């Protein structure tokens, strides 16, 4: 009983521990994500600022360059204009050509810088989009974290409820099983007692029968042996007697006694008229 309770308690502890570990993991993951997003945001902001400065500097350089070119062209034109009127047409043509070239160059520079600016703006826009995404993901992450936390709480509550229900169920089933086991054990013991007494009675009867049979057969054997021995004795007693007398009387009877018996035998023969 105590063992079963201890087992259930250990199960409770295990579940609680598992829930705690899951919660800790989620918290760590959330914090990590939050920190990473923060870092990305900062980086994006930094990139944005840098890109703005860079674009401004490029524009400034482009404008400056174009102004320089224009100024140089004006100076050259003015020099030419001032130097001679003859060459005014040529100089004017050259001036116009140079001016055109300069304007073309400036235009190209401007286009180039514009392209660079556009590219830069495009990159910047990308970065901004990324930072937007970051903001979105941050928002999503925050939302997800909130959802996770909510689900964690729900899960924890569910686990606790489940554990409580499980504990109750286990206790109930434990009680029921104990009762069942007791009943079964009692029933088995009663059966065992009955079987044992039957077996002992049966064994006793069989043993008695076997013993009686053995005694009877032993008696019969003894009687048979006795009869056989008596028959042997009857067959051999005369021989035994003769042998005994032969051994004993041969040593005990003197010559005189022997002769006496011989004379008696001869007397008897005469009396019977055997020798005539």
């Amino acid at each position: 009983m105590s063992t079963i309770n201890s087992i259930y308690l250990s199960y409770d502890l295990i579940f609680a521990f598992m829930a705690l570990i899951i919660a800790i993991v989620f918290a760590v993951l959330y914090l990590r994500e939050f920190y990473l997003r923060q870092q990305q945001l900062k980086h994006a902001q930094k990139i944005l600022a840098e890109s703005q400065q860079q674009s401004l500097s490029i524009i400034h350089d482009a404008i400056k360059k174009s102004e320089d070119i224009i100024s140089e062209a004006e100076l050259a034109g003015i020099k030419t204009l001032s130097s001679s009127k003859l060459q005014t047409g040529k100089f004017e043509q050259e001036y116009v050509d140079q001016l055109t070239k300069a304007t073309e160059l400036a235009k190209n520079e401007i286009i180039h810088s514009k392209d660079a600016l556009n590219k830069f703006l495009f990159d910047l826009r990308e970065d901004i989009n990324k930072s937007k995404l970051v903001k979105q993901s941050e928002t999503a992450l925050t939302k997800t974290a909130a959802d996770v936390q909510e689900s964690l709480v729900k899960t924890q509550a569910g686990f606790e409820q489940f554990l409580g229900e499980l504990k109750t169920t286990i206790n109930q089933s434990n009680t029921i099983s104990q009762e069942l086991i007791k009943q079964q054990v009692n029933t088995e013991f009663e059966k065992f007692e009955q079987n044992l007494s039957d077996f002992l009675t049966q064994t006793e009867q069989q043993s008695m029968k076997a013993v009686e049979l053995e005694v009877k057969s032993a008696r019969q054997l003894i009687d048979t042996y006795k009869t056989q021995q008596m028959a042997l004795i009857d067959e051999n007693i005369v021989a035994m007697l003769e042998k005994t007398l032969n051994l004993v009387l041969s040593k005990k009877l003197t010559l005189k006694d022997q002769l006496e018996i011989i004379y008696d035998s001869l007397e008897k023969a005469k009396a019977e008229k055997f020798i005539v």
Partner: protein
Amino acid sequence: MANKTLDTFLENTFTVYQVRRRLTVLQLYLSHQIFGANEKGVELDPLDKAWLNSFDADFVKSFNHKNITQQMQELAQELKKIPTLTLILPLELPENQTAILGKWIREKFQKSLLIEFKTDPSLIAGCVIIWNGLSKDYSMQARIKSQQEEILGSFKTFLK
């Protein structure tokens, strides 16, 4: 003369064994007496010597170089005609007891009779007599066998 010789011969001779032995001894003695006076004497057993000395002088003188062979043959033939009583004894009797028993038997039964002794220790005591081809057991062995039932009965009373 043959009867006289036979009677003389049988005077102290009772058994078949003695007859055979003494015939030979007599033959040798007479041959020596008649034919071998100058030769060295035959060495005889003291009993045989005593038996020969029991003869009177006339008996020895009745034999000469002419009749010795014939008389000895006639004697042997006469001896063969004498009936033999066979006695089976449980022991071997000494010579003197043989003579006493022989005399007693001749007095009790008939004068002209020879005894043949045989030994069978299983008889225990008494004897078995064989006469004219018939045998009668007067030994203790026979008595035990004849009273076997009584003996068994007496043993069984002890067992009960």
